[in-house]
C-alpha cells in the first residue's frame, strides 16, 4: 500500500520536476531545512558547501546534479535510506515523518544547486 503510494508520488515528481521551474525562495527554504538542527540537520553528518562544523558520518553532498541525475533516486535515499542499505545510519526522513514530502522536495531543490 505505502509503497505503491510512494511510487506514484515519485512518478509524479519525476514528471513534474522537469516542467516546474525551481524558485530561489524554494532553494532558500530547502537550504534552511537542510541546515536546521531541528529540521533535516543534514550537516550533522554531511559536509555541504559553506556549512559550518559538519559531521562526517556520510559522504560530502557535492556535485549533486552530476551524481544524482535521477531525482527519484535522491528522493528515495532521503525518504528512507534503510530501503537502500539496511544498516544505514541515516534517519528515514520521510518514512518516520521527520520531514514532510514537500520539505524533502525543497531540500532536493537546494541539493541540486550544490
Amino acid at each position: 500500500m505505502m509503497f505503491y503510494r510512494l511510487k506514484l508520488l515519485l512518478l509524479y515528481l519525476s514528471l513534474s520536476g522537469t516542467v516546474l521551474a525551481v524558485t530561489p525562495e524554494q532553494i532558500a527554504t530547502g537550504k534552511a531545512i537542510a541546515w536546521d538542527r531541528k529540521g533535516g540537520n543534514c550537516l550533522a553528518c554531511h559536509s555541504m558547501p559553506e556549512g559550518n562544523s559538519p559531521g562526517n558520518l556520510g559522504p560530502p553532498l557535492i556535485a549533486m546534479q552530476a551524481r544524482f541525475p535521477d531525482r527519484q533516486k535522491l528522493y528515495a535515499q532521503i525518504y528512507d535510506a534503510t530501503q537502500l542499505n539496511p544498516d544505514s545510519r541515516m534517519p528515514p526522513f520521510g518514512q518516520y515523518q521527520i520531514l514532510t514530502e514537500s520539505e524533502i522536495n525543497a531540500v532536493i531543490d537546494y541539493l541540486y544547486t550544490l
Partner: protein
Amino acid sequence: MVKSLITLGLALLSLGVFAASKQASDTTPLEDLTTYRSYFEQRFPGVSLQQYANGVYAIDAVSRENWEAIEEFPPYEPMVEAGEELWQTPFANGKTYVDCFGDDPAQRKHYPHWDAVSQQVVTLPFAINQCRTRHGEKPLKYKKGKMADLLAYLSYASRGQVIDVKIPDAAALAAYNAGKSFYFARRGQLNFSCASCHMQSAGQRVRTDILSPALGHASGWPVYRSKWGELGTLHRRFGGCMKQMRAKPHKAQSPEFRNLEYFLTHMSNGIQYNGPAARK
C-alpha cells in the same frame, strides 16, 4: 500504519562482524568479547585496551590535550570529598553505609552483578538505595546530586580495580541478552541504535562531537561534564543519548537500564575502573 511497528521493531544491527547474529542469544558473552574487541582493534590500531577507559580521548589526540589539562585540577574533587562525608554520616537509626557494605569504600568491582535471590541486576547506585531503605532512609535520586557524590567517593577509592562482570547462570544470561538487544535495537524517530553511533560510527563526527567507542564506556563514572556543569551518573547519560535519538528515555535504574549497564560493563571486562572522570 506500518511505521509504529517498524519503530518498535527489534532490528539487530549487522555490522559485518555481527552479520551472523540476528538474535542476542546466538553468541555467548565470551564470543561477544572477542568480536567487539577485535572490531575496535581494527578500527583504532595502536590504542591499548586500557586506554579505552578514557572514552573519546583514547582515540582523539586533539581533545585529549585539553582533557589532560582539565584532569590536572579535577573539577570533581570537591564531590569526592562531599561523598566521603555522606559515606561516614550515620543514618537516623545510628547505622552507616558501612553496616551494608563493610569497612572498605573500594566497592566498585562488585557491581554490577547478578543477584540470584532477587533475580535482577544490582548496580552500585541501586545497592546504595537498597541500603538506605533497609535502614529507614529515603532513596536518593539516581542521576546527580548526593548519589553522584557518593559514587564519586566510592569510585575514587576503587580506582585501578579491574572490571570483571560475571554471568553466572541462565537467568543472568537472559538479563545480559536483554541489555545486548537493547544496545543493538533501533529506536526513536531518528531510527538509531546505541551501536549506530558508538560501534558503527565510533571515531566519526556528528557536527563537532567525535563519537566515542562503546568499549570502555562503563569505566569512568560518575562523570563531571562541562555541559552539565556538575556530576552525573551513567544512567543520566543513557537517558541523554536516548533523547538524542528522539526516543522516550527509560528511568535511571529501571530494569532496562540495569540490564543495559550489565551488558555494557561486561564488554569492558579487563579494563580498569577510573572514575570519576571529566568530559566535555
